[in-house]
């Protein structure tokens, strides 16, 4: 049914349809509206989930972990500092192979304090064995919740999944959404059938001490499961398209979406909502006859290496625009992409742009500048192109005089 929904309403509607057993909740801007909306649904009797008001995000993730270990389908939501506080139990959840599904309203990390959006919070969880989806619009934010449950709870995967939507830009914007209901989602999402549960009549131990002789192999199994999720996401996206008639990068296993990139010389790679503005600028260039395109990973972990290599191999220059920086060495997406391309022998120059941190607008002019600079390095050997990331824009007049370059 078509509705006008904010991003947080859409996530709450998706959660309602997926009907978790337990929802531990703790507020944080700009996520709060998600769990607040869900609390209304529970209070109104529309949702029968056990809604647990906890005293911190650490407790929210720990409660989710415990309930999931007992066999429950769970949901919780957070972002920024709250995700930091959840980080410890989330790393445990992946090791214990528990399919926690989280809605993440991406927000910057302190300090300085900022409530506005970027991807530094979820990128910092990269190494924890969690699947990470990034939505471009409100519809996708809703649909990714269903996809996240389907993949996370698959017995061969059994991993936590973060379903990310840009804080404020998507959480607080209203868009027309084709909302699925619980009845409709049942065809797509089976009941959770856990591999193991905590059951006194059939006792098991989860997450207990492992000696050096076993720890490496246990973590290797998690690594393999994250990688295996690529195929499962592909299958889930196909089934989703069959049932709901909405497609997310079907030809690239649901991991990557492309826009006018097939014959493009210059390709921008970016995650999430900024891709809307990038599409607009691409259309401008196309109207002038210039071959510019977009490649949008929908998933950051597992990393869609083969899919990205395939859609980028004929480009002459690539710009990665990301709302993240690994302080001290470039942006995480560019680092991974260059490793992926260059280890494949695909020697295309990649410029790395750090943009849109803490809610700074990424304007059409910013994107035009990125395209112009990227056009300049077309066809060059990557070794002849300045590797250092570029901050677009960086307000030099604000910087102290002690910068070293």
């Amino acid at each position, binding site marked *: 049914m078509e509705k006008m929904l904010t991003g947080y309403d859409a996530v709450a509607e998706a959660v309602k349809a997926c009907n978790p057993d337990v929802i531990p909740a703790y507020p944080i801007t700009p996520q709060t509206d998600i769990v607040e909306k869900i609390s209304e649904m529970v209070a109104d009797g529309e949702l029968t989930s056990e809604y647990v008001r906890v005293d911190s995000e650490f407790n929210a993730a720990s409660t989710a972990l415990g309930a999931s270990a007992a066999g429950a389908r769970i949901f919780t939501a957070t972002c920024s500092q709250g995700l930091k506080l959840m980080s410890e139990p989330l790393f445990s959840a992946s090791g214990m192979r528990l399919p926690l599904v989280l809605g993440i309203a991406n927000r910057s990390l302190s300090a300085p304090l900022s409530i506005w959006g970027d991807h530094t919070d979820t990128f910092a969880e990269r190494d924890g064995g969690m699947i990470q989806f990034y939505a471009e619009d409100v519809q996708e934010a809703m649909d990714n919740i269903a996809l996240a449950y389907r993949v996370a709870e698959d017995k061969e995967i*059994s991993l936590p999944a973060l379903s990310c939507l840009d804080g404020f830009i998507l959480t607080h914007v209203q868009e027309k959404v084709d909302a699925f209901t619980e009845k409709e989602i049942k065809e797509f999402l089976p009941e959770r059938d856990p591999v*193991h549960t905590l059951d006194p009549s059939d006792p098991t131990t989860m997450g207990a*001490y492992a000696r050096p002789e076993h720890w490496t192999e246990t973590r290797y199994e998690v690594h393999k499961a994250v990688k295996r999720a690529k195929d499962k996401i592909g299958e889930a996206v196909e089934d989703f398209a069959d049932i709901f008639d909405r497609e997310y990068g079907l030809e690239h296993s649901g991991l990557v979406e492309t826009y006018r990139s097939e014959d493009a010389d210059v390709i921008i790679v970016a995650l999430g909502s900024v891709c809307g503005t990038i599409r607009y600028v691409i259309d401008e260039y196309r109207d002038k006859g210039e071959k510019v395109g977009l490649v949008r990973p929908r998933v950051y972990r597992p990393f869609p290496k083969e899919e990205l290599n395939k859609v980028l191999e004929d480009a002459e220059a690539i710009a990665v625009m990301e709302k993240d920086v690994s302080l001290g060495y470039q942006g995480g997406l560019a680092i991974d992409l260059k490793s992926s391309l260059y280890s494949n022998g695909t020697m295309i120059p990649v410029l790395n742009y750090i943009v849109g941190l803490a809610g700074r607008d990424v304007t059409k002019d910013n994107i035009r500048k990125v395209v112009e600079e990227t056009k300049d390095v077309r066809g060059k050997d990557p070794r002849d192109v300045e590797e250092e990331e570029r901050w677009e824009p960086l307000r030099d007049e604000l910087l102290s005089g002690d910068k070293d370059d």
Partner: protein
Amino acid sequence: MTKDPYEDLKISTGAVTDPKTTLVNKTGSWRSERPVIDHEKCVMCGKCETFCPDMAVKETDEGKVEVDLEYCKGCAICAEECPVNAIVMEKEEK
């Protein structure tokens, strides 16, 4: 338990092991101080048993509380919690 259950342990989804495998990990060797209970002072309130994070404090058949030194790590939570100060920590001689 004579055989080490970790010897032929297989990794299953979620590192779920057979129950009680952890019993072979005798964590008592980690201890630098041991709890010593003064049974004259002890009022059998059970707080030490409740608070022990390793479940190393147990009530015995004789109706006394004793610490299982094979597993007690010497954290001293029992001594801290004891309402009648019946538990003191004494240095381990190495």
